[in-house]
Structures are given as structure tokens and as C-alpha cells.
């Protein structure tokens, strides 16, 4: 089971992603969730998850800054950002930060599944190489 942390200021999105993950029967488990950037960074530090899914526009510390700060302590963590309808530019910047994938809103079962399986495939590849 891969360990997953979800950061989004929308309660329903966080709960929804949790529900999606269990419903989709993926090899992931949500070990932590946060509704702002500062809390999110703390959760990442304490949980050291395999994957973090974060919204870009969140209070306290924005999603990209969370990634930047977390990267130093958890270099092996994969990041997926959720970008809004008109935040494509952010999403592109996120990719330069080493973000593995991005999901454009709305988060749906298909998009989430695609992003997570892609990461799984990548892990499988690196493990194979290693």
C-alpha cells in the first residue's frame, strides 16, 4: 500500500478523494489530510508519504510553496497538483518543480486513477532498474 496525503481547502474534495481511492480499489491509502498549506506541510513532515496530492490555491502557504519546502525533507515523495480552470500557468510551473502530474479541476475518478497509476508504473520501472 502506498501512503497518500491530500491537501485541499475544500472539505468535500478531501473527503471525495478519500472516497474515490477506496472505491477505485487502488493500492493506496490516505494517511493524512490537511485544509491549508501550513498544516499540510506538517502532515507531510510527520507522515513522510509516498504521494502528496495538493491544490495550488490553499490558504496559509500555497501548494507550490508547500512542494518546494517539502522537497528538501522528503526527496522521494511524488507530488500531484490539482489546478483550477484558469490556473494552467501554475500547473506548468509546478512541472518545473519536479511535480509528477497534475489534475485539472474537477477531480474525477478517471483523472485520479490515471495520475495514480502513472506514478505506480514509474515506481515499478525505477524498482526494476534499481
Amino acid at each position: 500500500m502506498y501512503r497518500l496525503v491530500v491537501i485541499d481547502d475544500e472539505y468535500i474534495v478531501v473527503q471525495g478523494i478519500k472516497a474515490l481511492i477506496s472505491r477505485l480499489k487502488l493500492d493506496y491509502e490516505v494517511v493524512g489530510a490537511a485544509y491549508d498549506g501550513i498544516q499540510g506541510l506538517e502532515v507531510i513532515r510527520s507522515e513522510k508519504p509516498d504521494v502528496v496530492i495538493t491544490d495550488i490555491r490553499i490558504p496559509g502557504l500555497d501548494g507550490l510553496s508547500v512542494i518546494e519546502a517539502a522537497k528538501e525533507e522528503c526527496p522521494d515523495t511524488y507530488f500531484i497538483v490539482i489546478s483550477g480552470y484558469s490556473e494552467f500557468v501554475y500547473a506548468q510551473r509546478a512541472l518545473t518543480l519536479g511535480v509528477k502530474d497534475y489534475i485539472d479541476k474537477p477531480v474525477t475518478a478517471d483523472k485520479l486513477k490515471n495520475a495514480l497509476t502513472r506514478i505506480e508504473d514509474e515506481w515499478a520501472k525505477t524498482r526494476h532498474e534499481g
Partner: protein
Amino acid sequence: MINPSDGQGMGYMVVGLSQKLLGKSFVMGNESFDSSNFMVVDEDDQLVYFVGNEERENAIMQSYSNPGENHLYLFSSVTNSTTGWHIVNVVEKNEISEESKNIRLTSFLVAGCVLVVGFLMARIISRTISHPLKQLENTIAQVGEGERHITEEEFDYSEVGRIGRKFKEMVNTNLELSEHLMAVKLNEREAELLLLQSQINPHFLYNTLDSLYFVAIMHGDDQMAEMVEALSDNFKLALNNGSKYIKVADSVKWMQGYMKLQNMRYNNRFELFVDISREILQRETITFLFFSHLLKMLCITVWSRRLEKERFPFAAGRSKNNMIFTIEDDGVGIDDMSRLENGYGVRNVIERIKLNYGEKYGVTFESSQEMERR
């Protein structure tokens, strides 16, 4: 010689004169008559001296002595009162009449020339007036027939030409103005549309729909999640970020979403077949509302009439630079075709196509439930 005291002749004085000299003294200057002769005749009509055409001398003398019947010569004479001698100039009548003929001919010739030149001048002058008039008349007739842009007529700088120029200028300015008016009308329409789009608060709508989606997921209701997702996509495409143009691919996506929702409502009643090349899918059209309206209309008009499944083949083709979209239904048909064009949605669609792409584009409906659009 005459004695001055008694007036009687007292003798003769003979004076020798060179005949040549005498002749010269008669003919002073050029009188231009070839047949001119001079003679001196004494009081008894006896020829004293003759200069001129010697061969005619006798004939001339004869006609001179019978003044009543001669017609050949014209005599003009001066009489010396002392001696009673005459100095006579003889000219052939023929030559004088010849001369007068020449005069007549010359006058006719001159008159003729003046007439011809006058006629030509009149023509030229009248042409410079009538030509621009004719041009002006033609131009006005053209405008009368609906021509709104005059390019071919070139007016000169005459007064009428200037009027023509002004007229042409006026008509062409009018064209510009009406084009301008058209553009303004178009912009107004688009502004109206954008206002409508912006009045719908999309983010609130999308966010709520997204929340609904998650709620459905959390409750394990996949069908509801699917519907909400389709509706969310549908709105997103319909509002199209407020932009005026949309890719054909996105229009197709919208139609598929719409069909999905309708099919959930009517239990898979409709089927949409899309046959559009990849090249056309990448092209842009004005916001696809025009497909959507047609599709909606088809669903509604067809719905109440049939119990079997409805199929809508949707295809696109190209002719030169135009795109032709056709959408059909296999329903029972529409009995009153004019009803189609009276609907607000369709009329608006047609109007927008015409405003955006020009008058020759539009929508045509065909009776066997076929629809064509360009």
C-alpha cells in the same frame, strides 16, 4: 494742233512713240485677266492702236462696232473729250464669268468647311457634356438596382463629372457606413452574449457541481456521479471561458455529453454518430451553440413522435475553404419546416452565423429530416 485763238486746226505734230512703250503705259499693274486687251479708237470708231491678243483683233473690233449684238467681250472705255478718241479695255466675258464661278466655288467651299468644322466642334463640345451625363445616368441606374459600391465609372473634371464624382463618393461612403453599422451590430450582439455568459457565475456553478460529484461518490452512487460530471463538463464547454470561438472537437464533446444526459433521462433513447475528420476537429467555429441548438431541437421535435431509438449522424465536410456540417435524424420528420426557423434558438444561431461569416452562410433544413449547415 489747234489754234488757240480761233479754235481751228492749224496743222499736225507728229510724235513718234515706241509701240512697246505705249503698251506698257496702258497696262499698269496686274489686272489678272489673261484675255485683257487695250485699244485706242478714234471718234469714228477706227482702230488707232491695239495691244493684246493680235489674233482676236478683228473679232474684237467687229463686236466693238456692233454693240448691240456682241456677247463675247466686255468693253470699258474712257473718252478723251478733246479728241473724241476712246481708250478701250477689252476683256472676254468668259473669263469674267470664269472668275465669278471661282468666287462662287470658293465661297461654297469656305461655307462648307465652316459647316463641317462647326459640326465637329459642336459634337465634341456636346460630347464633353453628354458623356458625363450619360455616365452619371448609368451610375444612378446601377445604384437604383442595388449596387452599393461603384468602382468602374471614372468621371472627368467637367461640371457634370464633378457631380458624378460626388455621387460616387457618397455611395461608397454609404457602403462604408453600412459596413461599419454591420460591424457595430455584430459587436453589440457579441457583447450581449458575453454579458450573458458572465452573468452566470461559472466558478460557483462548477464548484457546486464538483461537490455534488464527490457527494455522489461518497454515497457510492456512480450513476449520479456520472451525470453530475457530464453536466459539469457541459457547462464548462458551453460557457467556454467567455471566448467567441471553440474547437469543433469541443463542440463534439459537448454534444456527446448532452446525449449522455438525455440518454440517462430517456433510457438510451438517442444515439449520436460522429463522422468528422481529425483535421476539421482541430478547426474553430463560433461557439458551438449552433450545433447544440440543432441537436436539442432534434431531440425535442423527434421525441414525442416515435417509440424506437433515434439515431443522429453528425458529419462534417469541406468544400474549398468552407466547412459543411450536417446533422440528421431518422425520425418521422417535421411536417412544418417553417416552425424550425421561428424558434428563438435557431434564429439566433442563423443570425450569428451570418454576422460572423457573411450572408452566404447559414443553415438549411431539408424535408426528409435532414439538416445541413455551413
